[in-house]
């Protein structure tokens, strides 16, 4: 079945380029040049994924995101990827906190876009379906149900807070998790401004899980936004 992508982008050249690139990959693409158009299409066409450019002339995209999130149907968790300009961090973080799945900063390559879309589509449904409980990447194995972390076959001992932090990232593996989301989910809503907790515990996690903590290969930093655990390898079984 062809996956349907709703592309909301007001610049015609970029819109057409992305549409062609996505169609080559086999996606069914519908395009919208404004938020009002996008809202209409999102309601009627039920896309599998939305690519939303920030900085559209008729709004900031929050209403569209809220509309997509409110629907309790099977489409209620349609992944939303934000496309933001370099200097639109505030709005981007705001929408990520509000439930957008991930973001790309302009200019980006088609390869990056496809990789992000792949991760977002894989996570589709996890909001309703059982969450991801396994993660495997480059010798790291995390089993959330068994509360077990292994690195190259050897057990790694994590403190409860370290484990909670890693578990939160595993559930969104391959996608960015904002500082605010991490702090709220691991420490509680009253700690959402205590970014320094994250710096400390990410440092500890990296010391245990990375070969070279100063050059992490798994627990990546998204400056000013949050953290991203690299995409997991598909399970062998």
């Amino acid at each position, binding site marked *: 079945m062809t996956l349907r992508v709703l592309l909301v982008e007001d610049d015609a050249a970029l819109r057409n380029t992305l549409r062609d690139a996505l169609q080559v990959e086999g996606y069914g693409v519908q395009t919208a040049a404004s938020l009002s158009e996008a809202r209409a299409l999102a309601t009627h066409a039920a896309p599998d994924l939305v690519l939303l450019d920030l900085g559209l002339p008729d709004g900031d995209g929050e209403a569209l995101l809220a509309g997509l999130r409110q629907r309790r149907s099977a489409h209620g968790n349609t992944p939303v990827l934000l496309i933001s300009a*370099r*200097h639109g*961090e*505030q709005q981007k973080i705001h929408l990520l906190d509000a439930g957008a799945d991930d973001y790309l900063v302009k*200019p980006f*390559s088609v390869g990056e876009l496809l990789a992000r879309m792949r991760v977002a589509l894989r996570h589709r449904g996890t909001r309703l379906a059982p969450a991801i409980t396994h993660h495997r990447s480059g010798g790291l194995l995390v089993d959330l149900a068994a509360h077990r972390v292994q690195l190259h076959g050897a057990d790694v001992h994590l*403190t*409860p*807070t370290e484990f909670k932090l890693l578990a939160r990232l595993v559930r969104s593996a391959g996608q960015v998790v904002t*500082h605010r989301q991490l702090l709220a989910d691991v*420490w509680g809503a009253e700690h959402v401004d*205590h*970014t*320094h*907790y994250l*710096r*400390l*515990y*990410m*440092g500890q996690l*990296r010391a245990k899980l990375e070969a070279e*903590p*100063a*050059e*992490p290969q798994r627990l*990546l*930093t*998204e*400056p*000013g936004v949050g953290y991203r655990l690299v995409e997991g390898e598909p399970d062998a079984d």
Partner: protein
Amino acid sequence: MPAGRATITADRAAPLAWAAGAAAWGGAWLAMLGLDGTIALAHQALLLVLGVALAALWWPAWAALAGGALGVLAFNALLVPPRGSLWIARWQDALLLALIAATLTVVLGLITGLRRQARQARQHQLQAEQLRQLGEALRDASLPLAHAGALQAALAALTRGPAALLLCRRWPLAEDSVDTIGTADADETAGLWHALRQGQAMGPGTGRHGELDHWILPLRGGSGPAPAALGAALLRLPGPGRGDDALRAHAQALCDQMGVALQRQFSRQAAEAATAQAQLQAVRNALLTAISHDYRTPLATILGAASALQDQGPRLDAQQRGVLAGRIVQEAGHLARLADNTLQLARLDAPGVVLRRDWESAEELVGTVLRRARQRAPGRALRARLEPGLPLLLCDAMLLTQLLDNLVDNALRHTPPDSPVELLVRRAAAAGDAPPGVVLAVRDRGPGIAPAWRSRIFEVFQRGEPGQVGSGTDSRPRSGTGVGLAVCRAIARAHGGELVLRGRNHGGSSFECHLPGAVQPVPAEGSP
């Protein structure tokens, strides 16, 4: 201001002066009557003259004259025989009385004249002192308007009526660029505006509107292409047509001092604004020149490769097409970074820039920068060295990674491909009680930068010249360096830090970003 308190009055008929005159007058009569019979009539006549002359030293002229006339009549009635009547028995006594009257007239005339001269001299002295004090205060003042109240008080004291001022706050003249000090009715306000625009006085003695009961004087700014006046003053007079020319001349002199001071202020401001504008224009031009140069090179590469693909596509083999496409992607990435830097520089240059500071770990920032650099330049020797236990930084992560990205990019592009680039983070030397700062350094083993260029390389319009600065095996000009390094320094300074370039022993450059320390946050409580 002291000049405001130095009131200049036309006459000072204080009660004390009246008493002194009366004492002289009465004393003379006491002596005349007390010594009556002991001394001759001629002695008494001289005592009378003395008393009246002494009284004239304190009394105003009319009172002294009246006192003299009364004295002569009383002398005739009380002392000249036959006593008790104004009848004069002997012609010698009549002559005596006539001589007394004549002498008194002459003496009183002389004394009055002398007193008037003394009064005028004192008044001139006070006026000169007042002018000097106002002038000095205005000369030292950067804002003449601060002394407007003193001028208003001085003018009010001159005419003994409330004064009002209309003053230009800035030039050129506009409805909202003037301040009114004191109160004036609609007619008076219209008069003030007229005087301000025309630079002409009106009121009694000025030749314009002599029927008015006030003077309106312009605050003249002096000669030259200056505007006629920079303000106007309203002086209310005791009645229509009153007020003398000398007083008006003095008031005009006071007003002109304020006018000159205002004009000096406006000229200074105009000169400063012109200088700032010229500097801004120069920086802008330099920036535009640098940017257009930096953009042209990658654009030319992109256009060349893209048009080759478009025109010759079918005749190129797959590998050739791949090379061209790769070049487009690479140069477009370069352009994107250039655009980021240019925008960031403009943003940081703007007044009131707000940083999004948060607690950041130096290790994470360095890790992010290294990862990006490895993607851009696979195969280059890149290394990070971090001192253990570094404090957290309170900074804008996007900006600091941009700074380090630029420095690493700069080092990679201007050193030979086999030469290593190192990212080093260490504590700064402690300075007093302040929390320790952090130094982030990007170090290379390239050809280095000549000492003369080390500070200039951060200026946006400077690019190291090939050969002189030495670009090693890379013979291209340091394209993009101008904006890139300028934005690095702007980012460091926005954080209260500084970016410096130091030469290294055994060759190479070390770009060092010094950031001030911050009191560390309280670590998370509860479970580890």
